[in-house]
């Protein structure tokens, strides 16, 4: 047996159905232990409510429509902020990867701004935008910008120069060279940025909603804290985990779809 069994190896039989369940064994086991610990009184309900209580709180909130509304508001903020920040980051990454002039002009500035923790801007953002939607969108966009920018830039800069020379020899125009050589070559790195950005997107949004909002998941959790509704607080945290996983799965699926040429994504 090799220690490193995640590396591709020939001839290993696969059981796809069982394989799909393996990742869920651990979360289910944790919930089970949690439930047992609560029911036996090992953990006090005031510290941590049982999973069944959390589910019950979720059911009530679902019936009142509050849960769906808050999830929807958070989801909307996350996606709009992500789209704005991501597309600006991607554009700067492209421009600075392809043009020396653009890179000289903006890269130093961007690197300086990057080193400011974007959440440190919350007081300033509240002064600028109040607790309006734009405050949250601004913070999410800013947080998402850098991982997308850096990884797009890195991806473009590390495209094999021999392939670019090959493209030129075979008479590709600039547009074609970009479409057929540079962009596909940068894509694996862009996806790394995308997945980092998704993590930062949730983090930023939740912090922003906790501090300055009147709706959304973060607000829901903060409200629940005010009224000592610990089950709702735990529920919000679990929903973050699920939403994070969902975003990650979506980006992985996209990755598998567009990087099917990559040896790491080929079925063995």
């Amino acid at each position, binding site marked *: 047996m090799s220690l490193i069994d995640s590396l591709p190896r020939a001839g290993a039989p696969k059981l796809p159905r069982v394989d799909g369940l393996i990742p869920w064994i651990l979360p289910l086991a944790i919930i089970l232990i949690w439930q047992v610990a609560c029911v036996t009184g090992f953990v006090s309900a005031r510290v941590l409510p049982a999973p069944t209580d959390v589910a019950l709180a979720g059911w009530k909130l679902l019936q009142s429509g509050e849960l769906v509304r808050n999830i929807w508001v958070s989801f909307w903020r996350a996606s709009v902020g992500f789209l704005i920040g991501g597309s600006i980051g991607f554009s700067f990454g492209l421009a600075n990867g392809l043009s020396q002039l653009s890179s000289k002009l903006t890269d130093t500035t961007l690197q300086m701004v990057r080193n400011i923790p974007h959440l440190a801007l919350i007081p300033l953002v509240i002064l600028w935008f109040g607790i309006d939607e734009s405050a949250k969108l601004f913070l999410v966009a800013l947080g998402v910008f850098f991982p997308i920018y850096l990884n797009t830039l890195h991806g473009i800069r590390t495209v094999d120069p*021999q*392939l670019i*020379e*090959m*493209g030129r*020899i*075979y*008479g*590709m125009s600039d547009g074609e060279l970009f479409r*057929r*050589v540079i962009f*596909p*070559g940068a*894509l694996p790195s862009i996806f790394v940025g995308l997945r980092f950005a998704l993590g930062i997107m949730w983090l930023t949004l939740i912090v922003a909603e906790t501090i300055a909002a009147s709706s959304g998941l973060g607000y829901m959790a903060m409200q629940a804290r005010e009224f000592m509704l610990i089950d709702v607080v735990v529920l919000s945290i679990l929903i973050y985990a699920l939403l994070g996983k969902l975003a990650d799965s979506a980006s992985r699926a996209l990755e598998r779809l567009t*990087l*099917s*040429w*990559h*040896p790491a994504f*080929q079925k063995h």
Partner: protein
Amino acid sequence: MQEALRFRSLDAEPVERAGYVEQARQLRLAPETASRGLSLTIRGLRKSFGDNEVLRGIDLHIPAGQSVAIVGRSGCGKSTLLRLIAGLEIATAGTISLGEDARPEDVRVMFQEPRLLPWARVLSNVEVGLGRERNSPDAQARAESALSEVGLADKRTQWPAVLSGGQKQRVALARALVSQPRVLAFDEPLGALDALTRISMQRLLERVWHDQGFTAILVTHDVTEAVALADRVLVIEDGRIAEDFSVDVPRPRQRGSAELAALEGAILKNLLEGTEDTSDL
């Protein structure tokens, strides 16, 4: 089939495959008269990178359809000469003329690395070789025909990552051939392959050269390969052509024959003498 024949034919009229092979055999006897290749004339060619003069005056005529091997120690300027011929570098002085009707698609290069696009299927990689004609309606048929030429028709839908080193290099060859080039320049094309794959690739190169009648320029450090494949072997030393050997051995050549071995010995002796002169071993 008609398409494939048109692609291979050196002649305007369609010929049967068997008849075509016969025709190619005749061409071997007199490649210059019927070749599709371009002749190449180089005069006073110089190339410097900063203060470093890599080529110091090359004068060379290569008749259409000839296969020329260029050998020399590393750093002698042989690859630079090839890159200049392929238009990848700009000469400091001197001229390279390829004939008046030469188009960009007429000169193709094959490198030591296959340089395939990992994100394109084998067939699309070959289509890249069509240059500006890659969007024409017969592009796919031509790419398929070029793939059959190198014996990889069954790999057309594969990703390059699953091919062996030799197969990748054959795809690169198909990509170079698909535009029916009239000059094909090889920069150590077999340098990264194992011994057995090298030999079968050498046979393949010899065959496509015979079939298509292009002018071949092969840069190599392997003198055995040079005498096995080429009509003529140039030795480059210190940026100049030091020696011009003609390989008058009939084809198909017997690998390891006394004639080839003697010639190989003479060329190697020449190369080694050059090394001793500069005493930088």
